[in-house]
C-alpha cells in the first residue's frame, strides 16, 4: 500500500494520528471511511453507567424474583418483603433496596443459554455469545472507543481491577482497555496504582522532570514520525492531566466525602466501591464496572445471602438515593447483573445450581423508568413468561441510553465489520 489506506490497515494503525485528534476520533474518522454501518455516537440520556457485577451467579429467587406462593422446594428457605411500589415484592434481605424500588426497573425475564460461569460472564459483559473465532470487546471498552475522556478521567474504569478477561478490549485496540484502580478502595491506605507522585518528588520537581523529558524527547520526535509515537504521547498527556489535575486526583479520594455519607454507604467493600463509582462518574468517567462478593451458592443459600446481601443492599440503595439527591440519577444508568440465575429447585445441599434460562437484572436512572417490573418468569422461576429479555436487547438498550447505536459496525481483524451488538432491539418499554 502506498498512499491509500485499506480497511485492514486502519485497524493495524492502531494508534492516534495527527495533531488535535483524540484516539477515539482517530478511529472514528478512519472507520468512517470504510464501507460499514456507521452511526455517530452522541451522548444520550445516560452520560455514564455504573455496572455492578455480582460474580458467581446470584439467585434471582433470593433477590429480585421471589416466588412466595411456589412449593417450598422452589420457594426456598427465605421470605419476601413488600417494596415501596405496591404489589412488588423482593427478598427479605433487601430492606433498603425495597425502599428505592420506585427508582428501579426490575427485569425478571433475563434469559440466555449459557450455564458455565465464563460463558455467562462473557454474555453479560459483551452482549454476545462466546465465539471460537473472535474476542468481543466489553461494553466499557466499546464506550471508551466511542467517546473520548472528560476532565482527564479515563472513560472506562474498573473497581478494583478488571474482573475477568471479557471486561477487556476484545478485538479492539488495547488502548481502550479499562483503567484499573489496582487496589480495593475499602482497604486501609488505599491509593490508585501510580497516581501519586513518588516519594521525594514534589510538584515542582515533577515540573522539572517534565522539562527534562521534553528536552530528551525533542531530538527523537523531530526525527521520527509514527502513529505509534503519537499514541504514546496521547497517553502521556492523559497521565499528566490525571496527575496534575487536583480535581481528577481527588475523584479517587474517598476521604473527600463526609463521614456521615461514607457511613451511609457502609465502610466496607460494597460501600467503598459504590461511593468510588459515584465519585468517578461525577468526575467524568463514562463506564465504571465494579464487582462485589461471590454468589456461586451451591450450598446453603440462605446463609450465603444473609452474609452477602446486607452490605450490598445498603450500599446500592444509598447509591440510588445519593445520585437522586445530587440530581445525577437522571443521567446515570446503574445496572446490577450477574452471569446467570440459579436453579428453580433447592438442591441436596440447600443451595441452588447454575440456571441461565431465566434470571433478574436491575436497571435504574439514565433514562430508565422507575418502579417498573419488566418481564416475568413463570410460577417456579424456571422459564421466562412475559417479555423474555435476551442479552442482545438488554445490551442494545444500555447502549441506546448512552447514545450509541448498537447496530454500528466496528472493524475486527481480517476486515470483518462486526456490529457492536448483533441484532439487538431497544426495549423502549423500559425507557422514560
Amino acid at each position, binding site marked *: 500500500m502506498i498512499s491509500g489506506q485499506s480497511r485492514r490497515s486502519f485497524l493495524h494503525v492502531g494508534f492516534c494520528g495527527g495533531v488535535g485528534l483524540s484516539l477515539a476520533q482517530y478511529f472514528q474518522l478512519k472507520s468512517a471511511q470504510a464501507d460499514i454501518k456507521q452511526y455517530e455516537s452522541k451522548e444520550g440520556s445516560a452520560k455514564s453507567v455504573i455496572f455492578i457485577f455480582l460474580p458467581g451467579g446470584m439467585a434471582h429467587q433470593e433477590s429480585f424474583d421471589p416466588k412466595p406462593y411456589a412449593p417450598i422446594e422452589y420457594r426456598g428457605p427465605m421470605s419476601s418483603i413488600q417494596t415501596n411500589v405496591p404489589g412488588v415484592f423482593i427478598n427479605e434481605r433487601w430492606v433498603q433496596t425495597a425502599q428505592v424500588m420506585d427508582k428501579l426497573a426490575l427485569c425478571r425475564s433475563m434469559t440466555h443459554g449459557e450455564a458455565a460461569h465464563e460463558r455467562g460472564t462473557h454474555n453479560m459483559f459483551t452482549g454476545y455469545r462466546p465465539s471460537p473465532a473472535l474476542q468481543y470487546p466489553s461494553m466499557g471498552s466499546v464506550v471508551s472507543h466511542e467517546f473520548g475522556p472528560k476532565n482527564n478521567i479515563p472513560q472506562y474504569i474498573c473497581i478494583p481491577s478488571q474482573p475477568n478477561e471479557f471486561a477487556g478490549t476484545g478485538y479492539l485496540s488495547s488502548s481502550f482497555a479499562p483503567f484499573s484502580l489496582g487496589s480495593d478502595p475499602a482497604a486501609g491506605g488505599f491509593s490508585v496504582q501510580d497516581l501519586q507522585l513518588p516519594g521525594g518528588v514534589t510538584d515542582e520537581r515533577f515540573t522539572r522532570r517534565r522539562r527534562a523529558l521534553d528536552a530528551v524527547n525533542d*531530538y527523537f520526535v523531530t526525527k521520527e514520525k509514527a502513529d505509534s509515537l503519537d499514541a504514546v504521547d496521547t497517553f502521556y498527556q492523559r497521565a499528566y492531566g490525571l496527575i496534575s489535575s487536583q480535581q481528577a486526583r481527588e475523584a479517587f479520594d474517598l476521604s473527600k466525602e463526609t463521614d456521615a455519607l461514607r457511613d451511609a454507604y457502609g465502610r466496607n467493600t460494597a460501600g467503598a466501591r459504590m461511593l468510588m463509582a459515584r465519585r468517578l462518574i461525577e468526575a467524568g468517567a463514562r463506564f465504571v464496572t465494579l464487582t462485589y462478593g461471590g454468589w456461586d451458592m451451591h450450598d446453603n443459600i440462605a446463609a450465603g445471602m444473609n452474609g452477602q446481601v446486607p452490605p450490598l443492599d445498603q450500599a446500592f440503595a444509598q447509591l440510588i438515593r445519593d445520585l437522586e439527591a445530587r440530581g445525577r440519577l437522571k443521567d446515570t444508568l446503574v445496572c446490577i447483573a450477574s452471569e446467570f440465575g440459579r436453579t428453580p429447585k433447592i438442591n441436596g445441599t440447600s443451595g441452588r445450581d447454575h440456571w441461565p434460562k431465566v434470571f433478574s437484572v436491575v436497571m435504574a436512572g439514565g433514562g430508565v423508568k422507575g418502579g417498573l417490573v419488566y418481564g416475568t418468569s413463570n410460577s417456579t422461576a424456571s422459564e421466562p413468561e412475559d417479555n423474555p429479555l435476551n442479552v442482545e436487547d438488554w445490551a442494545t438498550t444500555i447502549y441506546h441510553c448512552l447514545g450509541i447505536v448498537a447496530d454500528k459496525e466496528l472493524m475486527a481483524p481480517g476486515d470483518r465489520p462486526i456490529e457492536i451488538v448483533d441484532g439487538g432491539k431497544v426495549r423502549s418499554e423500559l425507557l422514560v
Partner: protein
Amino acid sequence: MKTMIRFALLAVLSVLPAGVNGDEPAPASLNVFPADIHLSAVRDRQLLLVQAVLANGLTVDVTEKAELKVENEGLLRREGTTFYPVADGTTKLTVSYGGQAVEVPVVVQNCQVDPPVSFRLDVMPVFMKTSCNNGSCHGAARGKDGFRLSLFGFDPEGDHYRLTREIPGRRINLALPAESLLMEKGAGQVPHTGGKRFEVGSEHYNTVLRWLEAGAPNDPGPTPAVVSVEIYPKEAVLDGEGATQKLMVRAKYADGTDRDVTSLAYFSSNNENSAEIAQAGLVTAHARGEAFIMARFETHTVGSHFIVLPKGLQYEDPKTPENNYVDTLVNAKLRKLRIVPSELCTDEEFLRRVSLDITGTMPTMSEYDSFMADTDPQKRDKLVDSLLQRKEFVDMWVMKWAELLQVRTIANRVEKKPMLAYYNWLKDRIASNTPTDKMVQELLSARGGSFSSPATNYYQTETETLKVSENVAQVFMGMRMQCAQCHNHPFDRWTMDDYYGFAAFFSQIGRKQGEDPRETIIFNSGGGEVRHLVGGRVMAPKFLGGATPDLAGRDRRQVMAEWLASPENPYFAKNLANIVWAHFFGRGIIHEVDDVRVSNPPVNAELLDELGRKFTEYNYDFRKLVRDICTSRTYQLSTKTNETNASDHKNFAHSELRRIRAEVLLDCISIVTTTQDKFPGLPVGARAVQIADGNTATYFLTTFGRAKRESVCSCEVKMEPNLSQALHLINGDTSNAKIRQGGLIPTRLKEGKSVGDIVSELYLRCFSRRPTEKELASLTALVAEQQNTAEALEDVFWSLLNSREFLFNH
C-alpha cells in the same frame, strides 16, 4: 503470472506492423486469457481478455482494441469479446495487438446439448453472487427475517430443503414460478429487507426461474466438484486514476469441463481506495496503492494482485545495493511500486536495534566502544554472528516458542513440575539448535509421562480435540481454522470437511494419571473418531490441503507430525520463516503471522517463498535464517523515510519504530539502571525473558502486555500503549525505585565524574548514542539550576527512561 508471461512471449507471432493503435506505446508482451477455449454446452460461453504489458511494467487492458480473428468462423458466435458455441469442432483464435499476436486454441463440443438447470451448479452460485447467503443476510446462523440459507452455501441439501419444503407453499410457487416469494423478494417486487438482488429478466433471475419452472428439483446425484478456480489477469499495474481492467474467472470441474463463471463469482477488493471492483468484474483504479482483488466461487477464493501508480509517474531505478537474496526480492517488489528504499541506518542505530532484536538486551558501554572503533567493513556481519552465539539469543526464542506452545501452569491440569519440565525440554531443544522440523515432530508425536517425556505437556495444556487441532493449524501453519468448525471458511479455501478431517488426527489421544498425581501419561488410545457437524459422518484423517494418508497400524499423530513438519507441507517452512521475519520487522510478510489465508496474501510472495525454501535447505536451522535477515540491507535500513516510501508501511522500504515488548523492556530498564529483579522460581538477577510460566505476572509485565499464553494467538503480546503504562513509568517503582536502587548516579559522582560525563553515560546506556551538543547543553543547564546535583541527575535518568527513544526499537 510468470508462466503466463512466458507463455505469451512464446506464443508471439509477428504478423502485424507495430503501432496499429497509434497513441498507445507498443507492448513488450501480450497476455491473452484464457490460454485455451473449451465450449461444451449450448449455454456455455467464454470471455476473452487481452492485456498489454508495457516495457516500463505498466499494464493496459486492450481487450476492446485487439483484433480477434477466428480461423473457422462457423464454430463461434461473438458478442463483444465473449464467444458462444455454434457448431462442434476445433479451430484457433488469433489475437493481435500492437505488432504482437497470440494464438488461442478453441474446442467446441456438445454444442447442441442443453443440460437441465442444476441446483448445486447453477442455482447455489446465484445465492452467493447476489449475497443472499452471506453472514449479514440469510447466511446468518439464525437466518434473517425467518429464512435461513447456509453461510456461503456450505449445506446445499439443507438449503434445498428450506427453499422447497420448510414452509410448504411459502417460498416457491411451482404453479406460477415467477410469483414465488423467492423471485419477488429477490427482484425487489415486494418489500425485502435486503432490497433488490437481481433484475427481472437478468441472467441470475432467469437461472432461478428456469429451475423453478423445471419443478425446483434437487440434483439427482453428486454433481462434479469444482477442482480449481482461476482468475485473470493474475496481476496488473494500472497507470493512474480511472484506468480500468476487466477480470475473467474460470472454474474447472472434476469431469474435465470448464466454465466461465465471471458472472457468478463474488468479487471483493481488500483496498477499495486503490482498486475498486464492480460485481460485473471491472476493476477501476483510484489512489496510488496496492490491492488484492478476490473472486469467490463455490468454496474457492482466488486473488489477483493490483498496483495503482500515479499517472505518468517519473521513476528511476535507484540501483540499491543488495547484501543477499532478501534485498534482491524486497527491492524487486519496491521497483514495481516505484518506491526507493531508505538509506542504511547508522552504526549506533544498528548496534542498538540488532542487540535488542537478537538478544533482548541493550549493548553495554564496552560493546558500544569496540563496535564503534572497529573499522572492518564487515563489522555488522561480525556483530550479528557474535550475538547469535549469545545465550540471550536462546532465551529470546525459548520465550517466543513458549508462547506458541503455551507453556504455563493450569489449575488442576498442568502443575508446576511438568510445566518446568516442558520449559526445560524446549530450552534444551533451542539451545542445542535442534532442527525445527525434528523438534516439532517430537512435540506433536510425543507419548509418555509429562515428567519423563515433557513434550507430552503439549497435549495436556489443551485437551479438547478440536481445539488441539485448531492450535496445531494456527501455530505451525499460521491458519485460523475456527470458522470452518461451523461453516465453510468465509475468507479461505477451507471447508468443514477439511476442518474435521484434520481434527481426526487428534481424536485418539489417550490421557491417564501417572503414579505422581501431578503427572499425566499421554498415549495412543487407538480408538475414537471425529464426526462432521452436518450429518455426523465419521471423518478420515486428512492433511490440510493434502492427502488422506494410510494409517494402518500407526499412531495418527505420528503420521500427521511427519507430514506437518516436512517439505511436503507447503505451509510449515514458510510459516515459521514468517514468524522469524516478523520478530525482526514488527510485521510479517503475511500479517498477522497466524492469519494465513487466501484473502490475506503475502505482501511479497517471492520473498516468503524464498525464505521458506532457504529454511528447508538449511535443514530447519533458524539461526541461519536470522543471520540472513539481520545481515540484509533491508533490516539495516534507517527509519528516516524519503518522499516515495514515507507512507508505505508494508513493504519493508524503511525501518519502522517498534515498541519494545514487555519482558525486554523490563530487562532493559534493569540493565541500564544496574539493578536486578527477582521473579518467582528464578534466582535473583534472572531476566524477565527467562520466566518459564505464562501465569507468572508482575504489574509491569501485565501492564506492558506480556502474553499470558492462554491462547496461541499472536495477538496475546500487546504492543499498544495505554494510560497505566504511562502512569507506571512516570510514578511507578520500575523507573523511580530502580534508579535509586542501582545507585549509578551517586557512584559516578563519588568517582568525580562531571555532570556532562554522567549525562553522556546515561545516553549511551539508554540510547546507544551520545547526546547532541544541544541536548548536553540543555540538560547540564537544567541540572545546574538545582542545588542537589544527584537529585537533578536522577531526574535526567528518569526522563531518559520515560522517553520515546527508550521505549522504541528504531
